[in-house]
């Protein structure tokens, strides 16, 4: 009995009228946890009851605490008949179980009924008292923190990244149980909501156990999904990345640098070539390297991993594979160092069954090289889950897919998969399982168990390392090579260098020398599922690129259906890739980030939607244009037609270049030895597809030829491609869009923020549509939806739609459903240069003052004991920041050198201070550490005394809020709701019904966050929106599943407005109330 849960029901408001005669309600509340139920008194005749109940106490196992939600039911007392339920509130108490998260849940919750929606609000207080012996029995995993955020959360630092965790639980779906025939829709919906809530609790607990076993304390990039398999059951599965996180004790680190959003400073610094610089993230890649070199220099290269791709390339039957793109450094020059590094990591990773990471952005120095996208799909026939306790089949299915992904990654010469995600699409008894990620090579830094030791050693030596670094900094900006580690020299391009063996490439691709460092080879195009690394050198701005495809399919049953689908899949994927590639070239870009391909299956069609953010990576060669070729050149009108089209395309490319500000520096491109000699010619290359295709033909998605990307117009597909190319309307002026977290080229975010969800369902008429017709319909649907969004958000211009997440579904025979969730963020167009500069300087200064503290601190520590070695590395990284040479093309060099010299000045100063040393920072750190607590307390008190006013809660799918600093993570939000109506028309038809439901879901998310003491949800995601309707019966039903991280943020301006003493400053802000 290791826990005591206490709940108090304070009051209700805006209750519905339950007694028609008096126009009032006699409300009381049932509070249930597990099998224990308490009741409040009846508060008669009021729509705003004040129960002010005693504390209801539940003595429970911590296992139950994790699994069960607290269930609060508001009822109307009726003397003569059964009491009528008004509605329910489910409260997930998981956030209270972690000592670092929330301490109390208190606030107004919407009372929700699955038939009537929100019916008033109830004020509840919940607390948990945990007994100390709780972690001894590992049935529960209290205290493991969960984050939806797919990067290291802002106020933590990663000590170690353990790797992939997954779990899956199955159950019968209450909706399909026999009892459902006799119970009310409400009872059935509630049973389902409750079951899913229980299952996700259980799932989280089990994942938590795995994390504890691995020695971690948190799950980052936690992604939980439901598969509603209908008759065959309900599957709840989750994946995530186990990590050991340390809370940054000093919440006042120069946040600007950690935070890619918040504007110019960090970004500009990066562009200027201070690539590795990220003071807030403690583990830099710079300084440790010399050490490594000393220690391990005797290793010899080993290529044991090199090439085992045969299996993955051949089996195409049910699970087509896709691998493309490339990157990495050719092994030759890298020599022993790299090989050593690889091997270290290799061994670290090989111990793992699946070296997968759900993260999409990484601490600096973690991601070394990117190979390209790997994905696998598999079509399965669902059968009833016989034994819910042993979900072996489902496990086996996923296992199979993951194995495949792993082998694809190997084929790309990579030992890890990052930006990994899994999804399903179900139609009747057919289920498509999909997994995708980006093959990559990671640094061992965060993975080895010895990592800590290394850091210890480091900290002991760091004083000397530091001084040498500083001297070098003074002496010669460009001489970083002497620091020894090539990969880290020009971090803005390192990740593009190909990881695979040049002579043994998994697929034909064009390799050139990196346009940044000119030392390693890079592919011509790079596709990834991750976010753009913050240090990446990008030319111009990025944009959202979508490939959309619709394919008809004959109606079929069972195995036949599955076969038909799996036969279609490879073609679908191939065409999606062709489209993506075309659109990428049309925008004159050479890399895709955040690629997400969704394939959705319906009874008579397959939908494919690929979204990604296109950018121009400076390191990669400039993409060639698109050439159109006809097969029968004799015909004059035909020729003309073609040349017209060619002109149009050329014009579009030119326009796009201007729009996205892509003016790469005109570098002399030396052709280097690549397996396929590069024909630098503008002449037409007929049938380039087939030329480059050999055994791997159909799935060779890396269209090779650089300058002449040929579309043959005789090919109907090509006609379609061209058509869709040219029908994509450009975004209206002032708008940008991307599906990643950050948009290259935009830094001055203002605080204006609008998260939204938009859903459209399109009904196809009965006409038998051809593939082309369907394509057009689908394409128009998506385009129009985007246009509508731009129009809606026009008042925010200039603005960027970030993290645009499309979800497609085929809910019924002739319906196509598209749902979009994204956030629109305004930015300041004009002050890009000026203010950006100023704030950089300011920021540098700040970083420097910060540094002094942080540098001194570890120095003393390491002299006495090495208890906090990591901080030292952090300080170091900042100092060594400016060393990498500046290579970004768009930098104003004069001011840049100014900055550098001032930097060096500062360094000198600092070096001085460091030699002197001092003790004063110790105390300041102590002072600083309890800050978050104080902050949350003050927040809370503000809130409770503020009366009825509602806390503003921001929501965003991103992991940050521009111009603010997240000071505390309060726990994960993972909510599942069902809404049903039998009076569809009265509720305003399907649109009215869904509109109010989505608004209600938002409201409930906000209320829960506010009750935890938070003021924002980050990494918000609507994972599921299943909508079913039956207009003839006047009925509709919808299921929505959302998730995110509840946080407390404070405005950066509040922080900046305070005096230069950082510690006292943050103390002040903490008491200055809510950020909004």
């Amino acid at each position, binding site marked *: 009995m290791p826990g005591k849960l206490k709940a108090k029901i304070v009051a209700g408001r*805006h209750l519905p009228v339950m007694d028609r005669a008096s126009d009032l309600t006699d409300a009381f509340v049932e509070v249930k946890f597990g099998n224990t139920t308490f009741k409040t008194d009846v508060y008669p005749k009021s729509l705003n009851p004040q129960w002010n109940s005693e504390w209801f106490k539940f003595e429970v196992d911590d296992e139950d605490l994790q699994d069960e939600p607290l269930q609060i039911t508001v009822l109307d007392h009726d003397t003569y008949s059964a009491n009528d339920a008004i509605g329910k509130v489910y409260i997930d108490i998981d956030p209270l179980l972690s000592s670092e998260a929330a301490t109390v849940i208190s606030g107004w919750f919407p009372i929700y009924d699955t038939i009537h929606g929100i019916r008033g609000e109830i004020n509840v207080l919940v607390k948990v008292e945990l007994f100390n012996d709780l972690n001894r029995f590992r049935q529960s995993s209290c205290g493991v923190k969960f984050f939806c955020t797919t990067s290291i959360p802002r106020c933590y630092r990663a000590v170690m990244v353990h790797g992939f965790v997954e779990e899956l639980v199955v159950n019968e779906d209450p909706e399909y149980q026999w009892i459902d025939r006799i119970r009310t829709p409400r009872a059935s919906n509630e049973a389902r909501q409750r079951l899913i809530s229980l299952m996700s609790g259980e799932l989280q607990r089990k994942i938590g156990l795995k994390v504890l076993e691995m020695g971690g304390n948190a799950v980052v990039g936690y992604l939980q999904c439901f598969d509603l398999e209908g008759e065959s059951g309900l599957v709840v599965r989750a994946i995530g990345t186990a990590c050991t996180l340390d809370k940054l004790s000093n919440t006042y680190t120069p946040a600007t640098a950690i935070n890619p959003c918040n504007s110019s400073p960090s970004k500009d610094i990066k562009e200027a070539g201070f690539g590795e610089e990220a003071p807030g993230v403690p583990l830099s890649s710079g300084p440790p390297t010399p050490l490594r070199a000393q220690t391990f220099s005797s290793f010899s290269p080993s290529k044991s991993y090199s090439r085992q791709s045969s299996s993955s390339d051949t089996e195409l039957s049910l699970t087509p594979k896709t691998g493309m793109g490339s990157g990495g450094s050719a092994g030759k020059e890298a020599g022993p160092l790299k090989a050593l590094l690889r091997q270290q990591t290799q061994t670290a990773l090989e111990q793992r069954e699946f070296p997968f990471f759900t993260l999409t952005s990484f601490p600096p120095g973690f991601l070394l090289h990117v190979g390209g996208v790997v994905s696998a799909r598999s079509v399965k026939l669902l059968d009833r889950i016989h034994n819910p306790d042993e979900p072996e089949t489902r496990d086996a299915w996923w296992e199979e897919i993951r194995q495949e992904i792993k082998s694809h990654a190997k084929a790309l010469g990579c030992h890890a998969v990052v930006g990994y995600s899994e999804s399903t699409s179900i139609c009747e008894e057919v289920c498509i399982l999909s997994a995708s990620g980006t093959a990559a090579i990671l640094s061992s830094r965060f993975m080895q168990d010895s990592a800590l030791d290394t850091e210890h050693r480091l900290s002991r030596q760091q004083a000397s390392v530091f001084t040498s670094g500083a001297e070098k900094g003074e002496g010669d900006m460009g001489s970083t090579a002497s620091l020894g580690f090539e990969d880290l020299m020009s971090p803005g391009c390192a990740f593009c260098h190909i990881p695979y063996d040049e002579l043994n490439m998994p697929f034909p691709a064009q390799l050139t020398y990196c346009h940044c460092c000119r030392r390693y080879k890079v592919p011509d195009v790079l596709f990834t599922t991750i976010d753009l690394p913050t240090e990446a050198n990008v030319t111009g701005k990025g944009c959202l690129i979508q490939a959309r495809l619709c394919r008809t399919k004959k109606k079929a049953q069972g195995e036949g259906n599955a076969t038909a689908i799996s036969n279609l899949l490879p073609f679908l994927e191939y065409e999606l890739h062709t489209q993506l590639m075309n659109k990428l070239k049309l925008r004159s870009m050479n890399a895709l980030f955040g690629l997400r391909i969704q394939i959705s299956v319906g009874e008579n069609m397959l939908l494919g939607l690929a979204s990604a953010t296109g950018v121009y990576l400076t390191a990669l060669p400039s993409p060639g244009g698109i050439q159109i070729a006809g097969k029968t050149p004799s015909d004059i009108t035909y020729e003309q037609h073609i040349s017209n089209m060619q002109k149009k395309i050329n014009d579009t490319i030119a326009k796009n270049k201007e729009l996205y500000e892509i003016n790469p520096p005109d570098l002399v491109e030396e052709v280097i030895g690549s397996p396929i000699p590069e024909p630098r010619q503008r002449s037409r290359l007929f049938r380039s597809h087939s030329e480059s295709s050999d055994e791997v033909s159909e799935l060779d998605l890396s269209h090779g030829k650089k300058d002449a990307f040929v579309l043959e117009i005789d090919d109907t597909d090509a006609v379609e491609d061209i058509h869709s190319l040219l029908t994509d309307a450009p975004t209206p002026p002032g708008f940008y869009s991307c599906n990643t977290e950050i948009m290259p080229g935009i830094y001055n975010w203002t605080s204006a923020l609008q998260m939204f969800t938009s*859903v459209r369902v399109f*009904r196809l008429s009965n006409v038998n549509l051809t593939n082309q017709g369907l394509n057009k319909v689908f394409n128009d649907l998506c385009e129009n939806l985007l246009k509508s969004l731009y*129009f809606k958000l026009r008042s925010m211009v200039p603005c960027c739609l970030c993290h645009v997440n499309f979800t497609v579904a085929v809910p019924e025979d002739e319906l196509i459903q598209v749902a979009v969730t994204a956030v629109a963020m305004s930015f300041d167009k004009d002050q890009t240069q000026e203010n950006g500069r100023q704030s950089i300087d300011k920021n540098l200064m700040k970083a420097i003052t910060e540094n002094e503290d942080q540098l001194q601190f570890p120095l003393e520590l390491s002299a006495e004991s090495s208890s906090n070695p990591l901080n030292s590395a952090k300080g170091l990284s900042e100092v060594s920041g400016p060393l990498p040479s500046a290579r970004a093309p768009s930098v104003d060099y004069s001011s840049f050198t100014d900055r550098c010299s001032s930097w060096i000045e500062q360094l000198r100063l600092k070096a001085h201070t460091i030699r002197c040393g001092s003790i004063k920072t110790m105390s300041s750190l102590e002072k600083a550490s309890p800050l978050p607590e104080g902050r949350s307390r003050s927040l809370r008190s503000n809130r409770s005394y503020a009366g*009825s006013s509602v806390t503003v*809660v921001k929501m965003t799918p991103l992991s940050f809020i521009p111009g603010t600093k997240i000071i505390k993570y309060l726990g994960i939000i993972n909510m599942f709701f069902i809404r049903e109506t039998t009076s569809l028309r009265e509720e305003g038809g399907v649109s009215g019904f869904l*509109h109010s439901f989505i608004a209600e879901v938002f409201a409930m998310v906000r209320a829960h966050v506010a009750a935890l003491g938070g003021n924002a949800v980050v990494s918000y995601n609507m994972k599921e929106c299943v909508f079913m309707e039956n207009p003839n019966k006047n009925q509709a039903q919808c299921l929505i599943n959302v998730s995110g991280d509840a946080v407390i943020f404070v405005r950066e301006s509040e922080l900046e407005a305070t005096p230069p003493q950082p510690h006292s400053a943050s103390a002040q802000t903490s008491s200055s109330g809510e950020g909004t």
Partner: protein
Amino acid sequence: MSVELDVFVGNTTIMDKEVYQLWLNGYTVNDAVKVRIEGGVMEECEASAEVLLSDTMDQFRTFQMCERLLQNPAKLANQLLFQIPPDRQAMLIERYYAFDDDVVREVLGKKLSKGTKKDLDDVSAKTGITLKSCRRQFDNFKRVFKVVEELKGPLVENIKQHFLLPDQLARDYAAIVFFANNRFETGKKKLQYLTFQDFAFCAGQLINNWTVGAVDNMVEDMDVDLDKEFLQDLKDLKILITDKDLLDQHKSLVCVALRGKTKVFNEMEANFKNLSRGLVNIAAKLTNTKDVRDFFIDLVEKFIEPCKSDKWTATDVNLYLTHYTNSAHILDTFKHQNVWTRYMGVIKSCILRMYHE
């Protein structure tokens, strides 16, 4: 082939002021789209009619969902369903409760009953404002009336507090409530030239000076009902016209003061007794509810019209009323100075407001 479902939900509820106004004006979605197209929003934003239709439908739906809350503005601030910034909330409320002077002019002083509501199609036809909008306005009048009817404390403050309206709008509503409660006749032909703002001004004067609330501010209906005692006292003013000496004395005092200062002196001198009788008689009759209703028509008939026919300017009227009021104070035998001041202060400002040249 058709879009079957189309929704957009923002974490912060997006509301376009223009579209809101169109909705308030009672336009159908299609009409609103037409108006917006004519407004040129399409060219500005490169939008198509389709996009505009989708946006308009969506917003109209949002407004409809909000309407329930707007009818109880206090709820809007602490409801959880829509996250609306406070300044937006204020805008929504203010515009929802805004009304057309033409519409309110038609129902001013009428009983806010179902019967009146049924006549709204006439109002709509007459004013050219959609029936839907007329109904919303009428329902607003009625809702405010019902809520403040039973509240203690100052009328304007109560309206401000319960409906979160800005000061001016709250005052207008106070006027509407006041007129509805006392059922002042405003519809007669002779009163047609008066605007709602004229009446609202007068109502303000009456509320501030003649109601119970003017003396005691914690009674129910204090600002809605006229001070009965005061009305009773007004009867005493009759002496000004019944006592021949007093009347003559009064007249000569006014004449002395005005001589040479006005072009209409002769007309004034000739008409003095008539005008004085008119004003004092109005005062004396106010104890009758029926006569209270005719208050404005009496002012017009007994004072404004005679002056108009003699071509008085507003300055003349002002001058006359000032001296008329002040001279009474000099009369030795006239004992009802306080009542006189309280009465004439209101009469003077009402007449001046109602005297359109």
